[in-house]
């Protein structure tokens, strides 16, 4: 067993899992917004990035890590809600490219503002968890206290979102508003509030993701830190199905593992090439996502 755990294959699987849960979380946050408002939010990485700067850097001068995490997530909620109210609401019912362009503009502004305030120099956040790999009978294997923290947090968030949507009345209303806004209104559901809430939750999930990414000793926090992660998260969401939370999470994790092998056995610059290839091939084969049932969209 020990021999297996410290083997190259096991370490790739574990490393891939650690990255994969992050892609899964980004994908999940994209799905939350897509399902509730039909918008692919290109600022889905940048909004949490800003929340992370405010919470972890600005408040980092005064408070410890965990208090800052709470503050950052609250700021993320605020950014999500505010964005939906101010920026996104006028875009409903407009041609598809309008929200795309506006959110790309927002992404640009957010990254520039963050760099203007905090500069582009990477900041490392002090985490309570060590990034150094555990050892088994004297040999390292690809799991550290930090990566455990990352995986456990991601799983907790995913489960929490699932519970919220499956088992609570709020989740019922969120789902109903996305599926049938008019019927929901007739039943007294405050659909506009649900749309705002969808963005709020999504940015909250995104902020937890951004904190995990930025807390990573090897990455640190920069204004562009989420760009690449967003790309992987989008690919996961598109492969798994933008309509399918479970599908996109699974796709994120599987992709994380595959890409870890590619990086290890081929070349780290080949990772994104393979990811693009996966995207293209899977979209050709299953346009609605690998995990969504094959059915034609009802109009």
């Amino acid at each position, binding site marked *: 067993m020990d021999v297996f755990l410290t083997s190259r294959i096991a370490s790739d699987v574990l490393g891939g899992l650690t990255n994969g849960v992050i892609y899964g979380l980004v994908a999940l946050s994209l799905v939350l917004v897509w399902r509730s408002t039909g918008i692919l939010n290109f600022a889905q990485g940048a909004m949490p990035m800003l929340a992370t700067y405010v919470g972890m850097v600005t408040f980092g001068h005064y408070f410890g890590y965990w208090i800052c995490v709470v503050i950052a997530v609250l700021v993320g909620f605020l950014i999500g809600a505010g964005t939906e109210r101010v920026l996104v609401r006028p875009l409903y019912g407009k041609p598809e490219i309008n929200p795309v362009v506006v959110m790309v503009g927002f992404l640009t502004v957010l990254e520039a503002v963050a760099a203007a305030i905090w500069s582009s120099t990477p900041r490392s956040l002090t985490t309570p968890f060590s990034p150094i790999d555990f050892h088994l009978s004297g040999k390292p294997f690809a799991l550290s206290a930090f990566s455990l923290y990352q995986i456990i947090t991601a799983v907790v968030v995913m489960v929490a979102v699932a519970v919220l949507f499956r088992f609570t009345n709020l989740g019922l209303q969120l789902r109903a508003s996305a599926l049938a806004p008019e019927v929901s209104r*007739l039943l007294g*559901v405050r659909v506009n509030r649900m749309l705002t809430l969808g963005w709020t939750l999504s940015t909250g999930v995104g902020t937890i993701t951004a904190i995990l990414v930025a807390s990573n000793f090897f990455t640190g926090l920069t204004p562009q830190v989420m760009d690449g992660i967003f790309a992987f998260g989008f690919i996961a969401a598109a492969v798994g199905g933008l309509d399918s939370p479970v599908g996109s999470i699974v796709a994120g994790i599987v992709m994380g593992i595959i890409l870890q092998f590619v990086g290890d056995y081929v070349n780290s610059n080949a990772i994104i090439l393979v990811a693009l290839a996966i995207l293209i091939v899977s979209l050709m084969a299953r346009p609605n996502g690998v995990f969504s049932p094959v059915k034609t969209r009802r109009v």
Partner: protein
Amino acid sequence: MIRVQDLTVAYGAVKALVDVTFEARTSAITAVLGANGAGKTTLLRTISGLKSPVAGSITHDGAELTLMKTEDIARMGIAHVPEGRGVIGEFTVEENLRLGALTAKVDAKQSLASQYERFPILGERRRQHADQLSGGERQILSMARALIANPAVLLLDEPSLGLAPLITAQIMATIKELCASENLTVILVEQNASSALRIADHAVVLNVGHVVANDVASVVAEDEKLRQYYLGMVR
């Protein structure tokens, strides 16, 4: 009681309702009849606030509805079973019902139980997705979902659409029964004039947006001209 006064509604330049005036009394069924495109659906959508009128007023027990949001109108106890039933196919039967019970002030578990008691078929299918139900079952689900919140007003848009005569008769009977037992104000929109008139207390006939008759149901049912020209009923 719902009062509609001089209501005019338009889609762009096209007027779908012109100066419509009528009353729907409590504990009574008011049938709204008319051919395709007469404006029946538009009337119900305007009452529910899904469509805003050009002019006129709609009141429920004296409270003005025209400027209120759909959600708030629904929360006042005005339940609308839309054309095509509006069940959420991706939801299970029970989820559909739970959604209807959200705004109710009553206990959700209890009201679910009472609906299952009233419509046993729904109890049997509670875990099934709503898009697996038959048309009649969907209609029942849709009505149960509207009733679960104990509404004061029930707006029904063509409940008989696509149903076999026997089922239609059953549904009409249920409506009649509910109206009496729950003190409901029912506005029943129907193409199927004869079944509607059989249970209605009052009837309003619309023709291209205009009210052409507004009288006791039995009077409308006996009016040859109305029957022939607007209701398509030939003896």
